[in-house]
C-alpha cells in the first residue's frame, strides 16, 4: 500500500522550546489517520511544517513517496496537501466564492472568470457531497458551514491529503456526526485524512490508525482496533487522564446573583437575548452551555456592565446593579475571567506587577488618597498569585507576553480568585492550555466553590462543563431553553439542547 506521508526524524526548536524532537510518522494513503496529544505536545508545529508554514531544523519528508521540500504553503498545496485550520482562515467580509478562489491565480492575470470558477467548484461540491451557497458573505455562515467552506477550499485546489486541526473543537455532537460522514465520503474517494485531536472518543470512532505525541516526541503509532481509550490517554500524558473530581459538597441556599428577564437588542433591532432569568447560589458552580453566538457571551457581559441592557434586572447580593458601571461591579465583589486572555484580560506589553492591578485599579489597596498607584502592594500581590498558582516566570517584572499561554491563564485566574470575590464569572477558563495548568485551575475552582464562592462558568468543553458544574443552563438563539442538574446529563444530550434538537 502506498504511503501518502512519510515523516522521518523531524526536529524543530523555538527559543526555549523543543517543539518537535526526532518525530517520525508513516501515513498510509487513503487512511484516516489521527494524531493525538495534549495541548503543547507538538502536533500543531508538525502540521505547520507539513503545510509549509514553518521549516524544520532537520529531518525528511516524503509526500506520495517523493522527497518533498516545502518552504511555503504554496509548495504544500502544489503537492496535494490541504489544511483545514482549527481557527478558520476565512475572511469575514469576502464571499464564499472569493475565499475559495483566493490565491489560485497569479495576481497579475487579467480578469477573474467567475462563472468558470463557479462551475468547477460546483463539481467539487457534488463529488464530495458538500454543499454551500457561494455568494454568501462568510460572516453570515454557521460554524459548521464555515468548516465546510474550508474543506471545499482545499479540495478545489486538488488536495489529496487533508489535514484537519482540531476540527471538532467548535462543533456540537450533531455537527461532528455530519463531519465524520463527510470524512468517510472523502476516504471513499481516495482522499487521505490526517486528523489532529485531543478528543479520544472521537478519534476512536473515525480513525484507522492513531499516532500519539507527547512533549514534542512521537510516542507510538497504533491501529485503532488494537488500542483502548485508557491506553491512549496514558500514552498521551504519561499517566492517567485527570477528570474533574466528583462533587462533594452541596450548594448553599443563599442567592448571590439573580438576573430577571434580561433583554437586549443590537443596533439593527435584532434580539441578542431575551427572557433570560436565572439564579446562582452561594457555593455553586452554574454552567452555561451554548454554541458560540447564541447570546450567552453577551449575557455575561451584561452582568459585568459592558453590554447594554434594554430591559431586565441584575441583582447581586440583593443590590440592583443598574446604576453601577463596570468598575463599581468589579469592585463590589464580582471577578471576571474573560474569554480571550490576550485581548481582554491582560496588557501584553506590561509586566505582571502592572497586570495584577487590572480590574481593580481604584480600590484602596492600589490607590492612595493622592491618586498615586501603590506599586509595593501590587508587587506583593503579584508574587502571591505567582506562587499560589504555580505560574512559571522569572519574576513579577517579566512582561506578560513572555509567558506561555498556560501560565498567562493561570496568572489571570489567580488574580481573580485571590481577590476573594463573592461571584466569579469565568469564560472558557481552560481554553488552549496544557493539562497540568488545566488540572490546577479546576482544583482551585472547586476549592473556592467549596469555601463559598459562586461561579458562573461558560465553556465550550462539554466535559469540563459537566464535570465542574452543579447545574447547567443552556442558551439557544438568545433564550434560556433548559436547566438541568449536571449529574443527570451526557455531552450528547447537552449538544442536542444546544442545537435546538431537543426541547
Amino acid at each position, binding site marked *: 500500500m502506498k504511503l501518502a506521508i512519510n515523516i522521518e526524524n523531524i526536529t524543530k526548536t523555538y*527559543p*526555549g*522550546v523543543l517543539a518537535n524532537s526526532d518525530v517520525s510518522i508513516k501515513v498510509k494513503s487513503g487512511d484516516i489517520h489521527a494524531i493525538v496529544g495534549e495541548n503543547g505536545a507538538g502536533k500543531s508545529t508538525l502540521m505547520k511544517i507539513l503545510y509549509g508554514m514553518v521549516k524544520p531544523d532537520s529531518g525528511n519528508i516524503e509526500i506520495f513517496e517523493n522527497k518533498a521540500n516545502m518552504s511555503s504553503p504554496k509548495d504544500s498545496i502544489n503537492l496535494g496537501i490541504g489544511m483545514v485550520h482549527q481557527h478558520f482562515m476565512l475572511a469575514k467580509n469576502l464571499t464564499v466564492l472569493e475565499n475559495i478562489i483566493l490565491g489560485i491565480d497569479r495576481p497579475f492575470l487579467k480578469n477573474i472568470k467567475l462563472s468558470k470558477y463557479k462551475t468547477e467548484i460546483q463539481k467539487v461540491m457534488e463529488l464530495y457531497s458538500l454543499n454551500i451557497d457561494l455568494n454568501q458573505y462568510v460572516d453570515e455562515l454557521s460554524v459548521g458551514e464555515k468548516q465546510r467552506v474550508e474543506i471545499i477550499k482545499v479540495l478545489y485546489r486538488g488536495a489529496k491529503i487533508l489535514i484537519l486541526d482540531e476540527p471538532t473543537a467548535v462543533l456540537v455532537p450533531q455537527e461532528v456526526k455530519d463531519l465524520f460522514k463527510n470524512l468517510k465520503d472523502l476516504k471513499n474517494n481516495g482522499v487521505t485524512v490526517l486528523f489532529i485531536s485531543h478528543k479520544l472518543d472521537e478519534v476512536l470512532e473515525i480513525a484507522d490508525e492513531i499516532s500519539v505525541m507527547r512533549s514534542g516526541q512521537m510516542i507510538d503509532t497504533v491501529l485503532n482496533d488494537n488500542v483502548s481509550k485508557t491506553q491512549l490517554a496514558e500514552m498521551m500524558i504519561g499517566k492517567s487522564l485527570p477528570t474533574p473530581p466528583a462533587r462533594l459538597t452541596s450548594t448553599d441556599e443563599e442567592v448571590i446573583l439573580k438576573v430577571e428577564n434580561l433583554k437586549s437588542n443590537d443596533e439593527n433591532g435584532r434580539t441578542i437575548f431575551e427572557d433570560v432569568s436565572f439564579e446562582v447560589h452561594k457555593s455553586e458552580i452554574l454552567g452555561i452551555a451554548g454554541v458560540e453566538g447564541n447570546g450567552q457571551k453577551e449575557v455575561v457581559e451584561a452582568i*459585568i456592565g*459592558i453590554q447594554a441592557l434594554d430591559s431586565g434586572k441584575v441583582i447581586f447580593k440583593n443590590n440592583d446593579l443598574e446604576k453601577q*458601571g*463596570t*468598575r*463599581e*461591579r*468589579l*469592585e463590589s465583589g464580582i471577578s*471576571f475571567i*474573560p474569554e480571550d486572555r490576550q*485581548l*481582554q*484580560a*491582560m*496588557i*501584553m*506589553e*506590561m509586566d505582571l506587577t*502592572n497586570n495584577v*492591578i*487590572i*480590574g*481593580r*485599579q*481604584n480600590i484602596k489597596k*492600589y*490607590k492612595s488618597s*493622592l*491618586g*498615586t*498607584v501603590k506599586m509595593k502592594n501590587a508587587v506583593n500581590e503579584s508574587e502571591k498569585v505567582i506562587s499560589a498558582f504555580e505560574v*512559571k*516566570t*522569572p519574576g513579577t*517584572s*517579566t*512582561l506578560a*507576553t*513572555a*509567558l*506561555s499561554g498556560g*501560565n498567562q491563564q493561570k496568572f489571570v485566574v489567580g488574580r481573580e480568585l485571590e481577590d476573594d470575590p463573592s461571584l466569579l464569572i469565568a469564560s472558557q477558563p481552560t481554553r488552549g492550555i496544557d493539562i497540568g495548568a488545566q488540572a490546577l485551575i479546576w482544583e482551585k475552582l472547586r476549592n473556592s466553590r467549596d469555601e463559598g464562592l459562586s461561579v458562573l462558568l461558560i465553556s465550550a468543553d462539554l466535559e469540563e462543563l459537566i464535570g465542574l458544574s452543579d447545574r447547567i443552563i443552556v442558551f439557544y438563539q438568545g433564550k434560556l431553553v433548559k436547566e438541568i442538574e449536571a449529574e443527570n446529563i451526557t455531552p450528547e444530550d447537552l449538544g442536542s439542547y444546544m442545537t435546538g434538537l431537543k426541547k
Partner: protein
Amino acid sequence: MKMRFRLVSVSAPIIALTISFGLSSLILLIIGKDPYETFKIMFEYGIRGKSIVSIINRSIPLYISAIAVAVGFKMGLFNIGVEGQYLMGSLVAAYIGAQFSIITPLHILFIIIVAVATSSLWAAIAGYLKVEKGIHEVISTIMLNYIGTGLIAYSLTTIFDEPNSNYDLPRTKELPETGKMPPLNKFFNIEDLQDLHGFLVIAVLVGIFYYWLVWKTTLGFDLRITGSNPIAAKFSGINPNKLVVIAMITSGGFAGLVGLGPLLGYFHRYTIDFPTGLGFAGIGVALLGRNHPFGMAVGALLFAFLQRSAQILDLNDVPKEIEQMMQAFILLIVVVFYEVIRRFIVKQQVKDASKRSDE
C-alpha cells in the same frame, strides 16, 4: 535585567542620529558642500554662550509641546492639533492679559489659566467628535487647526486688534510690565548674555508633573492601559470614552502653555509673526524622546541645537534647510529603530522566561 533593556533602548536614538548624520553628509556631498566643515561650523556656533541661552529658550516651547503630544500618545491618541490649540491659547491669553495689571506672579498665573482653558476647550472639541461621532482624532485635529487659523486671523483683525494703533498690521495690545516673565540671568550669573527665559522654570515643573501624572497616578495608569489595549481597559472597568475626553483636554491643556514661553518672554503680544510650527515640531520631539519626560527634554535640546546652529550656515553658503532634512531623517529612522529594538527586547524576555522556568 531591566537596566540592560533600558540601555538597549537608548541605542535607538543614537543609531538614528548616526544614520541621519550619514545621510545628511551624503546629501551635502551631492550638492558640493563639505560635510565635515559644515558640521564643524554648526557645532562651533552652537556651543557659544549666546547660542546656549538661545538653544535653551528655543527648547522650552518644543519640550512643552512634546509633552502635550506625549500625553495623547500614551493613550494611543494622536493630537496633531497642538498647533492650533497653542495658538488659540496664546491669542486669547495675550488679549485678555493685556486688559489689566496686577502683581506679576498673579498676573502670569492668570494668563496661564486663560491660555490653558482656551486650548483645552479647543482640544475637547476633537475629543467630543471622536467619542460621539467616531471621527478619528488625526483628521479632526488637523481640520481644527485650519479652522483655528481662520478664527485667529479673523479675530486678530477685528475684536482682538489693538485699538488706536499706528501700526499697520493687526496685533494685540502689549502686555503690561506685570505680565512679562522676568529672565533668569541673575541666578546663573550670565547677565552679559541675552535673556534666559523665566518660563524655563515652568517647563521643568511641567516635565515633573507629566512624569508624576502618567507613571505615578491611577489616572495615568488607566491612560497607559487604554493606550496599550483599549479592550482590556474596557473589561477592567475603565470608561474609554470618558478617558478619551480627559486625555484630549489634558493634552490640550499642556498645549496652552507652549506659546506662553515666547509670549511672556519676548513677544509680549500676539502678532501675525507669532511663532508657528511649534505644535508640529513637538510631535517630532515626542517621537524622538519616546514620550519619556527626560528623553523628550534631550530631544528638545537636540532639535533646538540643530535649529540654532544651522542659522550660521547661510553665511557659509550652505542651505540651512539641510537642518530640517536632518530633523526629519532622525525622526523617521528613530521611529523604525525603536520598533526594532522593542521587538528584540520582547524576544529576549521570552527566551529568559522559558529558560528560567525550566530550571
